[in-house]
């Protein structure tokens, strides 16, 4: 197998019935399998679950995958999950692409299975096209200033500041008014304990 051959694994998630309810996931998997660059296409019940992630890891190793496409929910939810999953077996995390067939497909076309399935295929095709050109990236690291700013000195700000300070961090608490306390300072007794507020 040549070094630079693209070998993409596509993992189509049913998300229980969240996706499978309005998208024919087997049809999507079958379609994905025949896209250029795809070495393997698998259907899972819950790809983000531990068994689902294990399956991805195993497939990367067994099928020498060098790109992964997960067709499931929005990358805003599980991109970090799957990036970590693939890097656990040595694949650069930037070699992952997600195809959002839940929030932007199955959930918004609940009553047209045919159209939803066709769209899901298209979304996967677009993701695979992008995945073919993904490149490994090296992340830069930046130092962390060991101090926190809390804006607002009501009961929430006070608690956050105390927790952070008790844990050993320097805290700056900025309060707009001449005194901290917020609304709670104006209360006489408070529910549910019926005790005094300050």
């Amino acid at each position, binding site marked *: 197998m040549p070094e630079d051959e693209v070998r993409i694994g596509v993992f189509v998630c049913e998300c229980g019935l969240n996706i499978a309810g309005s998208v024919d996931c087997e049809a999507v998997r079958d379609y994905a399998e025949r896209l250029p660059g795809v070495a393997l296409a698998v259907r899972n019940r819950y790809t983000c679950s531990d068994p689902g992630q294990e399956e991805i890891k195993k497939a990367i190793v067994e099928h020498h995958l060098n790109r992964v496409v997960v067709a499931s929910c929005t990358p805003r939810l599980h991109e970090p999950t799957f990036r970590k999953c693939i890097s656990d077996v040595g694949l650069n995390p930037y070699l992952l692409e997600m195809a959002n067939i839940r929030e932007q497909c199955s959930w918004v076309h609940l009553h047209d299975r045919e*159209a939803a399935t066709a769209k899901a295929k298209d979304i996967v095709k677009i993701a695979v096209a992008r995945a073919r050109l993904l490149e490994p990236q090296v992340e830069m*690291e930046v130092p962390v200033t060991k101090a926190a700013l809390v804006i607002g000195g009501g009961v929430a700000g006070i608690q956050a500041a105390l927790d952070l300070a008790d844990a050993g961090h*320097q805290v*700056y*608490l900025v309060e707009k008014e001449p005194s901290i*306390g917020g609304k709670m300072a104006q209360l006489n007794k408070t529910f*549910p304990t019926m005790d005094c507020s300050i």
Partner: protein
Amino acid sequence: MMDVGRHPRIKLLAYSEVEEVSGYVGNFKVKVRKKARYVDEEECTACGDCVEVCPVIRPDEYQMGLSSRRAIYIPFPQGVPSSYIINIEECLGVQPIACGKCAEKCDKGCIDFDMKDQIVELEVGTIIVAVGMEVYDPTPLDEYGYTRFENVITTLEFERLIDSGGPLEGHFARPTDGKMLKRIGFIQCVGSRAERRGNPYCSNICCMNTVKDSLLLRDHYPEIDITVFYLDMRAFGKGFEDLYKRSKDAGVRYVRGLPGEVKEDPQTRNLLVTVENTTACRLEEHELDMLVLSVGLEPREDSKTIQQLLSLSRTTDGFFLESHPKLKPVDTSTRGVFLAGCAEGPKDIKESVTQASAAAARAQIILNQDKIPIEAITPIIDYDLCNFCGRCARVCPYGAIVDVDPKRKVPPRVIEAACAGCGTCSAECPVGAITQRHFGDEQIFAQLEAMLGERPEEKIVVFACHWCSYAGGDMAGVSRLQYPPSARVIRTMCSGRTGERFILRAFTLGAPIVLVSGCHFADCHYINANRWTQRRVERLWDRLERASIRPERLQLEWISAAEGQKFARTMRELEEMRKKVTPEEIEYTKQVLAEKV
């Protein structure tokens, strides 16, 4: 509160406001204006000698204006920092002829009329936003007579009246005659759960607050008759149902139905409340000595300032938006910034405290690391193509591109740590010399080609930014809003990344409609990168028009992360537009652009 004042690792900056924030997670630089108090905070012992001599009398805000204070005052006795302050706008004046009495009286010499605002510069790794809320002002609800009848008060005023530290020193009485009362009523949901005036949401705390008030009254004044007018009583928290039951068992009358009108008997100053009791199905009239409006909570009016300083988003209600309603309830869209308390939505003290501890724990994940990784989405410059024009440096919202000089032909250099990865520089480079890592030109072209390879005329190309419009698309899904299946979305971090090249390529490949979408101006996660998006789209509209291509086929829409409705509506509208684009038009566009591009 006292603990904060005493803690060796907490520096309290009271009477202060954040004015500027720059930097990024782990490395924020913050400028705070510490306003002049005119009393030395460290030296003042809060003896109060100064107050006695001050001739200026003003309503006391802490007591909701129910009693008065002087121009030099302490907000409330337990205030932290424990120091007096002069309201300089109310103060008669510095000069001894004008006044200056307090300064004369203060033996310690803490009063300094020349004190100036200070700018304090801080460096921090994380930020917690806990700016809280405001209490609804019932003035617009005229039918309850809040502004017309003195014996109609709000629950916050009630708190002050019944408090032993309040204006009546705990001797509860009604405002008009200072007499003990026999009958009191509470109206629930004032300013909340209303479609027309006030806010549509439930304010969360007002039911239990009234239950609490009813029990306090019962304990201290068992002879008072208490009636509560409500829509639903929401006693959902731990121990809440028990309190509600205690209140009912103690004889508090709960009447289901909100009064339509409140009148005052001008002689007795008693209040006449008409209400449709929906449980008993009858119209009732209640005569009361005092009426308390159970007001709800609102986002602070000045939320916008903090929102802009930290590039946050807000929900349509106006409260700050969390990263994810279930899984990331205290994170925000800006990495390293967290939410706590009512800033995020109406809640009680326990929930505020719980959320604050959660935010502190999340913040510590960052603070406990020596280094944190930054996403590899910075620009790469091809120095063979670059002509040193300097446009990239000009458009970068973060000043992350430096050195470039067209006259002396010095090439640009990227400061990676300062770059936030918006991709605007790549989109604006006139010669295509910059591309963004992980969102490369070739990758986006490949997406367009895959998308428009078959039946392009059926598809709508949507460029959406990660933080707002793509998230708005997700929100439409979470809310199960249905829209036509024609849209295909390309996600970039910022709409600023959507270069002319991408849009023109989409049209060349036969796209009937292209949408560029991003955050509303104030919400842009890259300061103002979307201003460049707008200029670019406007430029393209001109260009399309000149080429006799209908500019309406390129749409620009600002959709926030909370606007699932707007996303779905936009998709429906675009679908209507798409149907009107003729095959001839598409063919013509392809030809014209193929010649030009």
